[in-house]
């Protein structure tokens, strides 16, 4: 429990983490507001087609906030300090204090989970209010099950980012891959045109939890389950690697 508190306090005091909170809280609302404005014109013209999706697009794209959170939580540990302040890495201190590697990883993962759940709740609130503000009486009803799906999607994505960064120990690659992959032009979407197996990639199944895709092939619940399986496998691999690897290497 004390390790968990320590991880939480580290997570909130990281340099650059403000960007994660800012993007996580603001971006979904901003995207939904823009989308709602476009929708409103279509409603007034009487040709609305995608009204039911309106807030969820923002939530699908705004997941980048928690990606930054998950990546920074690990990559900051491996960042080498400047030679003027000793040239050390935070991970050596962390492992000196919490000597069980598994416990450290678990505490960190829990801290990331809790923070991303909080962040996603904040994001959902800002998104719903932004949609209400723009659309007014036309606002579609937000189903609770889908909102829970969005929270799950955010949390699982944060944990995926976390697990990948434990393996790479450098924030650049997971950030680039995950940000591009959650964007409009994702790798998985391209791959899913080549092979149907790509539909099982974590972000495609995660989206199924709350988006109405035209070619839906998993129910929201199985989608969440498959994504959880990805997270779980990745976490086990990360734990094994983290357990066996020399810190300094």
């Amino acid at each position, binding site marked *: 429990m004390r390790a968990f508190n320590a991880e939480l306090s580290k997570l909130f005091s990281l340099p650059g983490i403000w960007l994660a909170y800012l993007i996580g809280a603001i971006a979904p609302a901003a995207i939904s507001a823009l989308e709602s404005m476009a929708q409103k014109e279509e409603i007034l013209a009487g040709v609305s087609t995608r009204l039911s999706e309106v807030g969820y697009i923002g939530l699908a794209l705004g997941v980048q906030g928690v990606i930054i959170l998950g990546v920074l939580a690990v990559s900051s540990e491996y960042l*080498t300090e400047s030679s003027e302040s000793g040239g050390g890495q935070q991970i050596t201190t962390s492992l000196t204090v919490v000597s069980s590697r598994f416990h450290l990883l678990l505490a960190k993962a829990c801290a990331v989970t809790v923070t991303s759940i909080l962040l996603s709740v904040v994001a959902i609130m800002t998104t719903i209010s932004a949609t209400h503000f723009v659309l007014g009486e036309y606002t579609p009803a937000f189903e609770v099950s889908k909102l829970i799906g969005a929270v799950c999607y955010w949390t699982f994505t944060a944990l995926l980012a976390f697990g990948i960064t434990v393996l790479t120990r450098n*924030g650049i690659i997971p950030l680039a891959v995950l940000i591009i992959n959650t964007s409009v032009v994702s790798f998985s979407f*391209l791959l899913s045109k080549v092979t149907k197996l790509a539909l099982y990639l974590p972000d495609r199944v995660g989206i199924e939890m709350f988006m109405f895709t035209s070619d839906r092939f998993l129910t929201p619940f199985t989608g969440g389950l498959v994504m959880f399986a990805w997270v779980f496998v990745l976490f086990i691999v990360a734990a094994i690697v983290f357990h066996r690897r020399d810190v300094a290497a």
Partner: protein
Amino acid sequence: MRVPSSKKITLILGAELGKLITLPLTWLTLIGTFILNLFLAAAFTSVGLQETAGTQSILNIGLASMGYLQAGFIILGILAACSEYTGGQIRTTLTTVPWRGLQLSLKHLALAIVTIPAAFIIAASGVFYTFIRMRDTATGLEIDTMLAAIAGATGYLTLTTLLSAAMGALIRRTTPALVILLGYYFVVSPLTRDLLPGLKRYLPDTAGSYMYMPLSSEEVNVLTALQGTGILMLWTLLFIIVASIFYRRRDA
């Protein structure tokens, strides 16, 4: 020690090139981008082959991966600028080269010298791969238009790299710079393309994309290749100027 000014420039440029070439992440990024591009070209080609054969041009498919490719070059630009700030290298740099404006502009020049051949090879390899795979099915292709498109792609990637380097010098931390640029190029820009199409002509990436996009018949091309180059160049210069103003004024 007095050094004549022409010699000074060569020395600084040499030093900047040396720093850039000996950065291990430079090579990792470039090699990674190269391999990734081939994979993407393969994916786009097989998607293209599945669709009705004979109608789509090799260039369209060969350069379809540009959207992803630019991520590698954005990373390269940010690394070149931000690596100075991890571990206090910047103070050594400024002790040996106390002319800040000159140093920053020569850093961009050194970056361009490394980027141009790399961008050319990577863009050409994608088109070449598509060419080999689709030789039989696709319509004929003049070598002139192909070279022009590859040259445009090279220019686009180089200018994007320089823009990212300027952004990196402005923000000075790798992660926020990376998030802001990738967020812009991959999330904000595609969204504004749909929701606010009027801005398309003036934004750096969409205007720049006219540098390499082959003229398509269905879409009315609003910009020529030269106009696109001009707008992207203006953006890049603007960012470099802002970065050097901050660089000269700010505590290192």
